[in-house]
């Protein structure tokens, strides 16, 4: 007989779906089937069961081969590396739970590291904009129950957050939105006709990189003032038509993604998007929300802000927390060749940093803590496999709307395998001994 576990949390994207059901074997060791999850979430649960998983830490040898070592030896190597480094970078955190992040921050304080999470290549510029002018936001529950005007600006939830539209933003029948998608108008702004754009009532195919101009044009259109004939490749009458649709709603929301945060203009694009939201509140109720990527990148920002005062790019090398994106952010630190050790957990900068920065990771002593084989583990000196968070261990995570949700453990990890938190505690204890603090 198998057992079905319901209300499991999916540890893939920031939507953090909490209605997954998984079928596990009698002995509780194997995960057999996954229900309700999207195709990516399903793959995440099932891949944890693959037979070719690395189950013990491996240290790269002189000749390039891997040598299997124990978790104690791996913790010793990591602690020694951090203790002797002048400016270590501790990056990642977004695919692990808040408990592990907290232990990691203790380590960072002891060794005086730069701590950064994946917001660095995702919504970092959003965080800068939020510090500039604030963020009138809401929860996804409010979106489901109230929102009748939905904008997706520079994001493609059909691919990146596959169940976002069905659970919260477009299809569900909520308290005041009881006809589901019939109640809602959907506006998509994207330079490509994405699968999300194909579903929209209005798709504005913006010229790539002209988000600031178009956002600004929307603000002007709201006020009914003069506009050039074409802005960012969009005729002004189309902008006015879309602006009227937004004004006529009862509750609207702007979801925005990498199209805005990674294009030129960066944080200024988001400043303008937030200002547009503020302006729209003169006519109706409007909110704005970043489409956070990793399932716990929001949590990492929360924990970092709680413990250090800043949500990412924190530099502790001087014994107190400094925050200055462009200076203390990982991409810039690596590009300027300033770090002398790299510690990566719960992310894959090897695949998702520009190659110039990855080359720096390959040059210095490095540790990669990740259940998968990744380009990061491929260039690191030490690879420490750990239990899958959200599958083989529980822990607290934050959804993209800053709602904390406890992930659940559904199966046992392979025998003898540590979780992120357990391994970090070993490193912390040894590091404190080395620094004479224990």
């Amino acid at each position: 007989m198998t057992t079905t576990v319901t209300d499991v949390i999916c540890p893939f994207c920031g939507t953090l779906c909490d209605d997954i059901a998984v079928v596990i074997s009698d002995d509780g060791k194997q995960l057999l089937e996954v229900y309700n999850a999207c195709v990516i979430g399903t793959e995440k649960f099932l891949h944890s069961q693959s037979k070719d998983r690395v189950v013990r830490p491996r240290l790269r040898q002189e000749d390039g081969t891997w040598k299997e070592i124990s978790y104690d030896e791996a913790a010793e190597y990591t602690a020694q590396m951090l203790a002797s480094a002048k400016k270590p970078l501790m990056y990642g955190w977004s695919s692990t739970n808040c408990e592990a992040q907290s232990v990691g921050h203790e380590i960072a304080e002891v060794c005086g590291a730069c701590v950064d999470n994946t917001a660095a290549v995702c919504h970092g510029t959003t965080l800068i904009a939020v510090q500039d002018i604030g963020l009138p936001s809401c929860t996804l529950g409010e979106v489901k129950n109230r929102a009748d005007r939905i904008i997706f600006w520079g994001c493609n939830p059909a691919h990146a957050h596959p169940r976002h539209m069905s659970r919260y933003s477009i299809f569900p029948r909520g308290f005041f939105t009881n006809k589901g998608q019939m109640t809602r108008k959907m506006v998509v702004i994207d330079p490509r006709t994405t699968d999300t754009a194909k579903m929209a009532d209005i798709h504005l195919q913006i010229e790539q990189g002209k988000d600031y101009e178009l956002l600004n044009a929307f603000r002007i259109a709201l006020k009914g003032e003069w506009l050039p004939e074409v802005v960012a490749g969009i005729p002004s009458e189309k902008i006015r038509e879309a602006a009227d649709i937004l004004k006529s709603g009862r509750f609207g929301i702007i979801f925005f993604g990498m199209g805005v945060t990674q294009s030129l203009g960066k944080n200024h694009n988001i400043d303008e998007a937030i200002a547009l939201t503020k302006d729209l509140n003169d006519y109706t109720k409007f909110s704005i929300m970043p489409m956070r990527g990793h399932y716990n990148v929001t949590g990492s920002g929360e924990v970092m802000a709680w413990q250090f005062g800043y949500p990412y790019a924190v530099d502790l090398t001087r014994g107190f927390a400094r925050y200055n994106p462009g200076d203390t952010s990982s991409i810039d630190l690596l590009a300027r060749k300033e770090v002398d050790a790299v510690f990566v957990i719960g992310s894959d900068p090897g695949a998702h940093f520009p190659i110039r920065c990855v080359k720096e990771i390959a040059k210095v002593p490095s540790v990669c803590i990740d259940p998968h084989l990744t380009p990061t583990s491929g260039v690191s000196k030490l690879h420490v496999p750990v239990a899958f968070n959200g599958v083989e261990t529980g822990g607290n995570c934050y959804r993209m709307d800053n709602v904390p949700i406890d992930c659940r453990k559904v199966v046992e990890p392979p025998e003898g395998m540590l979780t992120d938190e357990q391994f970090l505690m070993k490193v912390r204890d040894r590091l404190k001994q080395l620094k004479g603090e224990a």
Partner: protein
Amino acid sequence: MAESEDFISVQTVYCTGRMASIDLNLISGRSIQQGVAIESGKEKPSYRTAAGIIELDPSDLKKLGVWKNTNVRVTSEHGSVIVKAIETTQGPHPGVAFIPMGPWANSIVNPNTYSTGMPTFKGTKVKVEGAPNEPVLLGIELVQKQCGVKIG
């Protein structure tokens, strides 16, 4: 008729060794196939199938003069990489090219953060040219090779 003309132009290009090249604006980002591939294992060929590609508008493919599913070299001032050119699945977007986020895109994107901490992943000027005989490397292999990592 149009197709046979295409065929002739492709033959001419390959027979004479003259390669057309086109300039495009590159963006990178998530695709659901890339999402599935990273969760099923980045060491596997499925990752290359999902992210070692460049999505081109049919009109740009025509200008380039290569068949879809041909390998191409994509070059920017920040690097160069071989990927497979496919016809876009989310078009039309003439003048814009899309490589899913991953080591292939990151071999050529603009790493400049302009003091924001964020590289400019979207909006890199690139040149695309046919490279039918060059292989597309696996994800981890591509990064290791560029970083000069010795593997046993």
